[in-house]
């Protein structure tokens, strides 16, 4: 009698998967394995240096998904995503050259392997910020949904990412909007250096999806047959429009967080046990045991993968390192947007519209601009808190949901990362989203999406992609009573981030014309809407479509003795101050910048050449404010012309107070502006 029962080898009949499909999965795994080995050998041997986050052990997940998706389907992944890129269909030439920072990289060597974008294969965005891809992937799914396409979006992230807020915000939004998206958690048991059990008390991650009202599925990501069957059902369901699914794919990271070799964050026993489940050798053995492939066939398949990898690496090594001349290329569509010392391009001013006008406040001008843009282009849509039925907290979208419906006027949960992220994703595939953030102060909770993703995506992708997103943000201040968290002028946060354009209108007329330009721009634009302008004085505004070009300042009042340079609601304080100064015989010119990036230094310097004095005024804190930048440039360019140094006036270095008396005094006003001008003229006359 046999004392041990030997497990019967798997045969074709009980593989649980079509043999040909399993062979294709192994072919992808062999390619991934060859890439991983090539990179690790090169790093170990000192052939090249770059940061590498090995995905060894996780090969079966993308190799299997590749059998169920096409290049039409969208993918977002992370820095530990080289396996995802290979299986998605990125050319290995472009991948290796990108890793090496070479000009022939898929993103010109500007992004590197943690920032791959390859629209041709459907690999839309790769982020090195844990969890940040999820809100953006929603936007890709929004675009597919809005356009009636059957594309599926798969966003990959690790178990570590389940702890960060962006993933929660994204999952909640996908649930309520029933987006065609799969949240694919490649649970490799470690968040960087920390084992799962040390960063969460959760028993599983699928219950998080269930808590948010959609399905969570747990699959063995190391078993291609089981994973294929599970993912086939999930992908078909999502493709059929049945809403999002969260998939927890169980696997194991065999390598370290970064570097090469074995995982050194776990015990030797745990690693040995994990290696026994490594899908690459296991699937190979299964193909042999089941008689699907002969040893010769597998050896040939592996040799082919090796040949492809070696040829691609040789080509990449021969490519030129991306040179410094590329520094300013791809920050914006137009290199002249970049503020550069000594380079002050002249941009033509807009033609004044001549058609019918109506007297309106800023909020109605903003409403009109959005209405016009949506009427003209079905790809324009608005998303933000309360933008639907209530018509926006400040009535900037009143009536739009009745006209355009909920698919284009999308009220969102209170989740700013989700709002910006969905805008980025939809913009990535050519839509024209407008993401509304109620107050600029809330930039703090979504700055990663704005600064690390919207702003940098064109550059990191070597212009393979761009983000024609408009972000509208209300700016408090000057009204009184909004307090320290709803009154700040934080434009300097945005201006310190290359890649963003920033408009800050001072009148209803400009708000409409600038917003229309932002919506039609190819780069991410932030349109700052001061409540003092939205709800301030009415103005006759043309009803037609007119655009104020970004980067064209306007002289609001001509003068000869000093140039007051300002923007946003402070322009009106400057105009009032100028009238006061006129009583003393001081004739001030007032320039309204209208856009902060691109900045119209040409008109600013022309004005100061004439008046030979300059004061920059803004509601933001004076210390490290935009005024310092402008004053410094004026002083450097016009040193010998000036009667006195260009100076600045901003808010005191304190949070904005609730007390009306403090707020009025801490932010520049017509009296303090006039006083600063008089003092400067007295000091240098």
């Amino acid at each position, binding site marked *: 009698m046999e004392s041990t029962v030997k497990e019967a080898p798997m045969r074709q009949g009980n593989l649980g998967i079509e043999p040909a499909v399993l062979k294709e999965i192994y072919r992808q795994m062999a390619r991934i394995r060859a890439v991983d080995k090539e990179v690790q050998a090169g790093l*170990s*041997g000192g052939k090249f*240096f770059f940061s590498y986050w090995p995905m060894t052990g996780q090969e079966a997940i993308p190799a299997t998904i590749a059998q169920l998706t096409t290049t039409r389907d969208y993918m977002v992944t992370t820095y530990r995503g080289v396996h995802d890129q290979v299986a998605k269909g990125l050319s290995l030439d472009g991948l290796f050259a990108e890793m090496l920072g070479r000009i022939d990289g898929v993103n010109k060597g500007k992004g590197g392997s943690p920032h791959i974008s390859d629209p041709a294969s459907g690999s839309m965005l790769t982020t090195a910020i844990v969890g940040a891809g999820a809100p953006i992937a929603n936007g890709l799914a929004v675009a597919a949904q809005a356009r009636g396409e059957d594309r599926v979006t798969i966003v990959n992230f690790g178990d570590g990412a389940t702890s960060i807020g962006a993933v929660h915000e994204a999952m909640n939004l996908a649930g309520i909007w029933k987006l065609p998206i799969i949240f694919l958690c490649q649970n490799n048991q470690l968040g960087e250096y920390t084992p799962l059990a040390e960063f969460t008390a959760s028993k599983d991650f699928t219950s998080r999806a269930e808590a948010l009202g959609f399905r969570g599925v747990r699959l063995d990501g190391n078993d291609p047959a089981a994973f294929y069957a599970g993912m086939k059902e999930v992908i078909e369901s999502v493709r059929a429009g049945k809403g999002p699914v969260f998939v927890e794919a169980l696997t194991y990271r065999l390598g370290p967080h970064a570097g*090469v070799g*074995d995982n050194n964050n776990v015990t030797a026993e745990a690693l040995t046990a994990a290696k026994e489940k490594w899908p690459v050798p296991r699937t190979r053995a299964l193909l042999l045991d089941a008689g699907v492939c002969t040893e010769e066939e597998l050896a040939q398949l592996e040799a082919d993968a090796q040949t492809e990898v070696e040829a691609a690496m040789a080509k990449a090594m021969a490519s030129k390192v991306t040179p410094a001349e590329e520094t300013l290329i791809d920050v914006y569509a137009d290199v002249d947007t970049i503020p550069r010392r000594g380079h002050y391009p002249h941009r033509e001013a807009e033609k004044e519209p001549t058609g019918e006008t109506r007297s309106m406040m800023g909020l109605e001008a903003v409403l009109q601009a959005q209405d016009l843009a949506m009427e003209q282009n079905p790809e324009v849509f608005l998303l933000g808190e309360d933008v639907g039925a209530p018509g926006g907290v400040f009535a900037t979208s009143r009536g739009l949901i009745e006209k355009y419906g909920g698919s284009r006027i999308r009220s969102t949960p209170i989740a700013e990362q989700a709002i910006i992220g969905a805008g980025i994703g939809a913009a990535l595939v050519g839509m024209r989203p407008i993401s509304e953030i109620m107050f600029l102060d809330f930039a703090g909770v979504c700055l990663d999406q704005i600064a690390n993703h919207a702003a940098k995506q064109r550059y990191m992708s070597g212009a393979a992609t761009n983000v024609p997103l408009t972000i509208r943000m209300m700016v408090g201040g000057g009204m009184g009573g909004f307090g320290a968290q709803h009154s700040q002028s934080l434009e300097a946060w945005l201006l310190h981030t290359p890649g963003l354009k920033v408009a800050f209108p001072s009148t209803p007329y400009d708000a409409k014309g600038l917003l229309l330009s932002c919506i039609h721009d190819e780069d991410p634009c932030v349109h700052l809407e001061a409540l003092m302008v939205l709800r301030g004085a009415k103005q006759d505004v043309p009803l037609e479509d007119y655009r104020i070009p970004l980067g064209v300042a306007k002289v609001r009042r001509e003068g000869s003795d000093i140039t007051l340079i300002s923007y946003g609601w402070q322009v009106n304080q400057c105009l009032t101050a100028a009238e006061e100064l006129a009583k003393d015989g001081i004739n001030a010119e007032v320039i309204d910048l209208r856009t902060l990036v691109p900045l119209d230094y040409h008109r600013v310097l022309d004005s100061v050449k004439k008046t030979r004095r300059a004061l920059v005024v803004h509601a933001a804190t004076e210390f490290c404010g935009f005024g310092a930048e402008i004053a410094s440039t004026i002083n450097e360019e016009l040193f010998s012309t000036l009667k006195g140094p260009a100076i600045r006036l901003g808010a005191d270095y304190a949070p904005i107070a609730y007390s009306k008396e403090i707020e009025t005094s801490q932010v520049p006003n017509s009296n303090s502006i006039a006083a600063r001008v008089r003092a400067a003229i007295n000091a240098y006359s």
Partner: protein
Amino acid sequence: MAMTLTIPKLEMSMMEGTLAEWKVESGQPVQQGEVIYILETDKTARDIEAPASGTLIHKVEAGETYDVGTEIGEIV
């Protein structure tokens, strides 16, 4: 074509490593993937495999600590 061997950067924080032991003598043939030396860092000891096949030439002694990027040998 000769391939230069240098002390690799195995971890983001790694600045130097100790070449603990050559596993193949200088002048001996090696196959790609064969362990050629043991590298110790402050975190761990690693087997380092030959990145190519050929003849291994040592350029430095084992038992010493070298900066990342130091040339330690070549495969010709």
